[in-house]
């Protein structure tokens, strides 16, 4: 799960990680009041779940009241389009207004789980403010990594090593050390999957602060962090994905026109691949899971059909433990309740497949049934093209 910068900074502050003074606002009046209270210069920052806000015009330094008024009006309500938002962009509903600071150095600092080493790794770079992927490509020597073994936890040597590599003065080292200890503890105790401070800044007074903050959390651990789970902002998510999550359906919207309903994540991915292989474009990833109930199938259909790009649907079910005749009944029941005008190609393989296919054929509904995977996919690709 992702959260907004202002939420990440609240969390940082509560864990003893210094952040600039600032406040979030959801109206122009409130935002201006915050700017007036903080004094100038200050920074107006669009709050959306995407990077690249600066280049997209979503972050603005303002030097006086009239500049503040102008840019608050411009950014609040803006549909921000950055390389991370997609072409449709994201509506700015909230602004974070922060004090301007006298910055003398900028760094990159992040904590993630390294899958290869199977432990957390702290990543730091002297190239603050730049995307880490870009730095890794152009200046790999500027990136420093420090793995933290779960037995030792974060030790003073980890911090010293990073501080010397970042060339910090003695006072700065102390401030950096305090920040990193608190940041690492936050990473562990909140089950974060990513904590990224970019840039981490050093001010003229040798203070070390998080000027920006991005924190993602392990979805599997949200159950033990209800306070963090409450920060979810569904406005930032694709509406159909939000709807799907209510029914524990794993749905991801894509750009194509063939809606897919599949059981199992691996098979769902493979189904997308094979559609592409035969010249089609999948409209979504959808894993309906193992114990497929009639209600779930119905909700899945509703979500697939709500995507107006969808011209044909492909249902690909491998019944292992699940009986395909039960799945077939679910499909028939679901389809009868919904007015489906587009073609649906169904492939049911596995336990009781003959019975399952018979139920579909005798339903009087407009289903195309195919047993062979390649044939089924060719058929749905054709139908989606309108041939």
């Amino acid at each position, binding site marked *: 799960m992702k959260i907004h910068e202002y939420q990440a900074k609240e969390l940082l502050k509560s864990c003893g990680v210094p952040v600039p003074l600032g406040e979030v606002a959801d109206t122009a009046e409130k935002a201006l009041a915050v700017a007036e209270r903080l004094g100038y210069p200050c920074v107006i920052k669009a709050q959306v779940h995407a990077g690249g806000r600066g280049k997209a015009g979503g972050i603005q330094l303002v030097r006086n009241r009239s500049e503040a008024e102008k840019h608050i009006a411009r950014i609040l309500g803006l549909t921000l389009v950055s390389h991370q938002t997609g072409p449709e962009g994201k509506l700015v509903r909230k602004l974070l207004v922060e004090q301007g600071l006298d910055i003398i150095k900028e760094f990159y600092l992040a904590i993630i789980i390294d899958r290869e080493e199977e432990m957390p790794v702290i990543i730091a770079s002297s190239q603050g403010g730049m995307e880490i992927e870009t730095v890794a490509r152009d200046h790999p020597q500027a990136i420093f990594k420090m793995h933290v073994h*779960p037995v030792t936890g974060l030790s003073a040597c980890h911090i010293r090593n990073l501080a010397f590599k970042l060339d910090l003065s003695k006072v700065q080292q102390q401030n950096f050390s305090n920040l990193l200890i608190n940041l690492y503890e936050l990473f562990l105790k909140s089950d974060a999957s990513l904590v990224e401070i970019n840039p981490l800044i050093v001010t003229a007074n040798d203070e070390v602060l998080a000027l920006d903050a991005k924190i993602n959390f*392990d979805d599997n651990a949200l159950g033990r962090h209800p306070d963090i789970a409450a920060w979810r902002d569904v406005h930032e998510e694709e509406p159909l994905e939000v709807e799907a999550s209510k029914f524990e359906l*794993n749905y991801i919207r894509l750009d194509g026109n063939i809606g897919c309903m599949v059981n199992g*994540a691996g098979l*769902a991915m*493979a189904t997308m691949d094979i559609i592409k292989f035969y010249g089609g474009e999948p409209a979504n990833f959808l894993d309906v899971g193992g114990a497929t109930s009639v209600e779930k199938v119905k909700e899945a259909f509703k979500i697939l059909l709500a995507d107006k790009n969808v011209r044909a649907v492909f249902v690909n079910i491998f019944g292992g433990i699940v009986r395909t005749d039960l799945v077939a009944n679910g499909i028939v029941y679901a389809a009868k309740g919904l007015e489906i005008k587009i073609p649906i190609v169904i492939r049911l393989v596995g336990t009781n497949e003959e019975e399952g296919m018979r139920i579909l054929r005798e339903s009087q509904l407009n289903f195309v049934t195919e047993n062979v995977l390649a044939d089924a996919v060719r058929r749905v690709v054709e139908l989606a093209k309108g041939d």
Partner: protein
Amino acid sequence: MSILINQDSRVIVQGFTGREGTFHSTQMIEYGTRIVGGITPNKGGQIHLDKPVFNTVEEAVKETAADVSVIFVPAPFAADAIIEAALAGIALIVCISEGIPVLDMVKVKHFLCTTSSRLIGPNCPGIISPGKCKVGIMPSRIHSPGKVGIISRSGTLTYVAVDQITRENLGQSTGIGIGGDPIIGTSFVEALQLFKDDEQTEALVMIGEIGGTLEEEAAAYIGKNFNKPVVAFIAGQTAPPGRRMGHAGAIISGGRGTAAEKMAVLKKNGVHVVENPAEIGATVKKILG
């Protein structure tokens, strides 16, 4: 032969009396797996599915000499269940549970290094040596004893491959679902090492997916050390970057872990990579003749 489990494996079930545990234990017993008991705290002394229930794994091991445990407990308690099994000296721990927090697995993984236990999973269908023993949730009916080893990060997609192998009359030696999480007990390379010395296994099917580097490590291992034919499919060729595709581990992050990258390095190391999952069985058949 087959690897890791056979007709002599003595299996206990953690989370024995729950809904999932009961359903799949019944299926395993029907398949012929020697389930010797199960664990549900505070239900010790009861009898479930005609087998004894114990409060702790330690007690179960003492009474039944179990050497394999399969875990069905809910994700928030699954890491603890793995630790308990390892402390009791279980040689092979198979964790089916999906949704274990990754930081729990960091601890579990490094703890297991200090024990002699092997973990398969979590978030996996388990392991099966057809005709001998099944420790997991895969549909028994589609399997048949034979000469093809299977290693996969997926569930249903593996069944699709198994089904094709069975229809080609080749059968399986052992099938292992290694799990779809970012941190798992047994990697592709570790599974390959076991299959390498198994006389029953003449060819191998490897089903990978986007995310992580397990497939790349496997490719390097196969290139140097594995002389049986390997057929591979990588799911997620069309997956968008930065999105978690169902499995917690199936995500392309920072431009790394793409299917294209994995397929290229597997091919370079002599693996028969199929782009179309419908062709897995036929490809193995063609190679084995």
